Structures are given as structure tokens and as C-alpha cells.
């Protein structure tokens, strides 16, 4: 059952990612990317990472993807939505991707991975919480400051760029 679920979700993940890579329409690509993120969340569940699976759906599908859809709709004239995003350098891209895949796959397949018995997955939320607030407290605080800076920075960069309607006061 585990093997079957793994095959289904990894095929869904790779298939939707390939669709993103080759579809000419940006909106279709964004919606297909939601499928990639969902199947990745299911793979995380198969690996026993329950908290991260929920986080993946909430942050990627709920926040980043919606942000990207807003970006697409702000920057696109809907009438010519598939006209200008041509793919270029497909040959070079294929060579680069092939070399990358070859190197990574060779590294994975040529390594002797230690085989050890793994028990049934246990809930991870309590252990994650304890670790974040003890061993990783400093990175956690730095990450919260980073998020604050990114939020303020994004507002500062973008607030003049959203086109205003005629006659509207700033």
C-alpha cells in the first residue's frame, strides 16, 4: 500500500511539474503548480511529517500560489495571456537539465545508503515545537525578524507600483 501511494503521488508530482514546465499559459501553470504542492504534501505524509504536510498546503497553496496568481493578474493583459511568454533556449535548457539529472541520479544510485529498520511514524508536532524553542531558538527569532523585514520591504517596493485609477488621490 505504501509503495502504491508513493508511486501515485510521485507520478502526480512529476507530471504536474512537467506540465508547468511546458504549458505556454501562465495561469494554467500556476494552477498546475497547486497539484505539485498537494502531491508533495502527500509525500511528506508518507514520510511521517504531518506538521510539514499541513504547513506545505497552508503556505504554498494558500499563500505563495495566491500571491503568484495576483502577480500574474496584475501584470497581464488577459487578452494576450499566452502571446509573449515564449520559451527560449530549449536546447540549452535540456542539456543543462540532463547534466543536472545525470549528476544527481548518479550520486544517489552510487551511494550505499544505510538500511535501517524504521518504526511506524510518530506525531512530530511536540518534538518540533520543543526543538524550535530550545536548540533552534536563535534561528527562529532571526527568521521572524526576516519575515517582518520582508513584509515591510515588499510593501515599500510595491506600493507605488500598483496602478491607480484616474482621479484617485494617493
Amino acid at each position, binding site marked *: 500500500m505504501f509503495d502504491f501511494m508513493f508511486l501515485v503521488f510521485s507520478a502526480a508530482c512529476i507530471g504536474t511539474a512537467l506540465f508547468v514546465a511546458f504549458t505556454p499559459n501562465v495561469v494554467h501553470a500556476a494552477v498546475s503548480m497547486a497539484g505539485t504542492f498537494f502531491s508533495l504534501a502527500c509525500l*511528506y505524509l508518507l*514520510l511521517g511529517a504531518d506538521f*510539514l504536510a499541513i504547513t506545505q498546503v497552508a503556505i504554498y497553496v494558500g499563500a505563495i500560489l495566491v500571491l503568484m496568481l495576483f502577480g500574474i493578474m496584475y*501584470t497581464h493583459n488577459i487578452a494576450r495571456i499566452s502571446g509573449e511568454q515564449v*520559451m527560449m533556449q530549449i536546447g540549452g535548457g535540456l542539456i543543462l537539465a540532463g547534466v543536472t539529472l545525470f549528476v*544527481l541520479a548518479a550520486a544517489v544510485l552510487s551511494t550505499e545508503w544505510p538500511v535501517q529498520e524504521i518504526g511506524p511514524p510518530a506525531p512530530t508536532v511536540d518534538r518540533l515545537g520543543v526543538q524550535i524553542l530550545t*536548540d533552534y531558538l536563535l534561528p527562529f527569532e532571526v527568521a521572524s525578524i526576516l519575515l517582518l523585514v*520582508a513584509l515591510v520591504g*515588499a510593501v515599500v*517596493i510595491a506600493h507605488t507600483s500598483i496602478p491607480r485609477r484616474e482621479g484617485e488621490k494617493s
Partner: protein
Amino acid sequence: MIGLPHFLIVSALLFTIGVFIIATRRHGIMMLMGVEFVLNAANLNLIAFSRYGEAGTRGQVFAIFVIILAAAEAAIALAIILSIYSHSARINLDELQSMKE
């Protein structure tokens, strides 16, 4: 029997697709999607190692930080792309040769 190498191969495929998107697409937001794929491939690796390796939940803590950084990066990059678009009405990165003017 599905084990660690299978997850690593899926992650390598996802990474490769992300690199391919970054290399071939000329649309600003599409390149962002490629970057997200690369980061997700790294996350899948981290979580697979935290399950099958000896890292315990530390791999998952790293994955959480990667997700935080990805969120911040997406917000900033989209703000920059919107700003460039309102400045020059272009989204195709090949047509944007210079940062100023």
C-alpha cells in the same frame, strides 16, 4: 520496497524540472515558480533524510526554515516584478536589459 533512494530520485527529478524552468522560461513569474520547485526538492530531501537517516526531526526543522525563506523570497520577488512592470510595462526578462533608466 520503497526506501530512501526512491524519494531522492523524485527529489532530483523535481530539482531538474525547476532548473529547466529557470533556464528556459523568460517570464518573470514563471522563473519564480522554477525557484519554488528547486526549494521544494530540497525540502523533500531534508524530510526523507529525517525519516530514513539519523537526523531525527532536525531535518524537519530545517525544512520549516526553508519554507519561511521561500515565503519571504516570493513576496520580495513579486514586489520587484510588479515594480518593474509598472515602470516599463514589461514582464519578459530578456527585454529588461538594465536596472536603471
